[in-house]
C-alpha cells in the first residue's frame, strides 16, 4: 500500500539482514521527534559503531505539524584515537568492552573494513572460534549498554491497571485513549518504546508487576504484541489494523472496555 500507513516492518527492521547481529531501531511519533531522533540516531551510531534505523510509519513520515526546535542539541562527535597509527587496531578488544573509535580514512590510520565476519585484524575469517568472537562482540556491545540505548516514554503509568504499549503514530491514538479512559475512571497508562530494538523488555517486566494486563495496538497483525508476550507472562490483548487506516482511540477503548478485569 504505497503512501498508506502501516507498521508491518517491525521485524524486518530487526531481522532483515543476514546472520545474528544487533541493531538499534528508533520509532518517532511526531515531526519534532523525526528531527531530534535523527540526531540521536547519529549519536548512537558514532558511540556504538552500529547502524541505527529510523523506522517511521507512513503517517509520521508524511505528517506536517508545528514544531518548536530544542535550543540545545546534544551532538556526540567521534572520539579521537588515543594511540598512534602503528598501535591502532579498530578491532581491538579493550577491557570493559570499550569501543575503539573508527578513524576516518585519510588520516594516516590505515586499516581494512569488511562486510564479512572478520578476525581481530579486520580480515574475513572462517575459523570458527574467530567467527564466534566477532559475532559475540557485535552482540555484547549493544547488550551491555541497554540502559544507555533504550529510551521509553511513559504516560500515567504510576497507578495504572492496564498498560497500553504503542509506538509511532499509533502511540498518539493510544495517548488519547488513555485520556478518554481516565475520564471514565479507568486506570489506564501508556508505555511508548522510542527505541523499538533492542526491545525494552526489562521495562515491561517491571511494569508487569504492577499492572493487570497489556493492550497492544499496532498497524500489523501483532509484531510488538509478540514481543510483549515474550517479555512477561501477563495477559495481553492486541488491537490490530492492516487496512492502511489508523488505529483510532475508539478502537483501543473498545478493547479496554471489553477486557473483563
Amino acid at each position, binding site marked *: 500500500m504505497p503512501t498508506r500507513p502501516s507498521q508491518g516492518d517491525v521485524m524486518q527492521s530487526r531481522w532483515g539482514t543476514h546472520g545474528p547481529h544487533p541493531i538499534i531501531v528508533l520509532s518517532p511519533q511526531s515531526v519534532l521527534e523525526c528531527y531530534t531522533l535523527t540526531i540521536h540516531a547519529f549519536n548512537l551510531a558514532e558511540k556504538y559503531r552500529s547502524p541505527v534505523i529510523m523506522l517511521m510509519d507512513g503517517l509520521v513520515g508524511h505528517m506536517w505539524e508545528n514544531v518548536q526546535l530544542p535550543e540545545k542539541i546534544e551532538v556526540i562527535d567521534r572520539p579521537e584515537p588515543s594511540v598512534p597509527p602503528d598501535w591502532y587496531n579498530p578491532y581491538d578488544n579493550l577491557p570493559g568492552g570499550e569501543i575503539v573509535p573508527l578513524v576516518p580514512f*585519510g588520516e594516516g590510520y590505515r586499516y581494512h573494513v569488511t562486510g564479512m565476519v572478520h578476525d581481530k585484524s579486520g580480515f574475513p575469517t572462517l575459523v570458527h572460534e574467530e567467527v564466534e568472537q566477532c559475532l559475540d562482540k557485535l552482540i555484547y556491545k549493544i547488550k551491555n549498554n541497554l540502559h544507555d540505548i533504550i529510551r521509553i516514554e511513559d504516560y500515567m503509568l504510576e497507578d495504572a491497571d492496564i498498560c497500553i504499549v504503542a509506538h509511532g503514530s499509533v502511540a498518539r491514538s493510544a495517548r488519547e485513549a488513555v485520556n478518554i479512559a481516565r475520564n471514565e475512571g479507568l486506570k489506564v497508562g501508556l508505555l511508548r518504546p522510542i527505541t523499538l530494538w533492542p526491545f525494552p523488555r526489562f521495562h515491561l517486566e517491571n511494569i508487569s508487576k504492577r499492572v493487570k494486563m497489556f493492550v497492544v495496538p499496532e498497524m500489523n497483525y501483532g509484531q510488538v504484541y509478540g514481543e510483549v508476550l515474550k517479555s512477561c507472562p501477563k495477559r495481553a490483548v492486541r488491537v490490530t489494523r492492516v487496512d492502511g487506516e489508523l488505529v483510532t482511540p475508539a478502537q483501543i477503548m473498545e478493547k479496554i472496555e471489553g477486557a473483563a478485569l
Partner: protein
Amino acid sequence: MIRTSETMYKYLRPDKTFPHVWCPGCGIGIVMGALVRAIEKTGFTKDEIVLVSGIGCSGRMSTYLDFNTLHTTHGRALSFATGIKLANPELNIIVVMGDGDATAIGGNHLIHSCRRNIDLTALIVNNNIYGMTGGQYSPTTPMEHKASTAQYGSIEKPFDICKLVEACGASFVARSTTYHAKMLDAMLSRAIDKKGFSVVEAMSQCPVQYGRRNKKGSPVDMMMWYKNNSISNPAFKKIPPGEVGEQFPVGILVDIEQPDYLERYSKIVKKAGGDKL
C-alpha cells in the same frame, strides 16, 4: 633475493591475508600488479588512496593491498565510494569490481555514477563469469557460452561495459587485458589522475569457471586469445559493421573534459550560502 622494497611488496600486506584466494592461472593477480604499478607511478602515498571493492574474486583485492581499504557488500562498492568521496574530496578513491558486481548487482550504481561524473576510478575486472560463487553466467558472458546456470549456453545478449559507461557519461573509458599488462598500467594511472568518473575494463581470464566450461584451453591460451582478438580503437572503427566477429577494441576509448560532481556541488553550496563542502 626478493626484497620488500620491490614495488609489489611495498604495497602488499604482509599479514595473515595470504595465501590469496585466486586459482592458479587466474588473471586478477596481473590486474592487481598493474594497479599497484599505476598507483606507484601517480606518486600518491598509501594514506591518500582508498581502495573500495565489492564481493567476488576481484573483491578480495582490497584485502591484500595496504591502503585505506573497504570490502563492501555485493554491488555496492560505488555507493560506499561515493559516500567516502563526499565526506573527504581530497582522497583518491579506486573502486575494484568484477563484471557481476559492477554490471548486474551494482548495475544501477554504475550507470548513475557515470551520469553524476563523480571523481572516482572504477576498475572493472571482466572475466565473463561469476567465478567465486560457482561459475554462474554474468551480464558479460557471451551468448551461447556455457556457465553452471547455462548448461546449454547463455541466451542473453552480453553487455559491452565500455559502450555502456560511455553512453552513461563517464569522462574516461579504457579497456585492456591481462595480456596487455603494460597498457593496463598506463591506463590505470591515467584513470587515477583523471578528474571525473573514469572506468578501466580489464579483461581477465578465468580458466577454472569460464575457460574450462567453454573449452578455452590453458590460461596461456586464453591470454593469447586476448592478444589475437584485440585491436586498437581506430583500427576497430574501420571494420565494417557485420564483419566484427569476436574482435574487440582496446586502448583509451573516451577521454573528455567535463565538470565533475564535486565541482557542481561546491557551486550549489556557495549558492546556498555555505563556504565549503
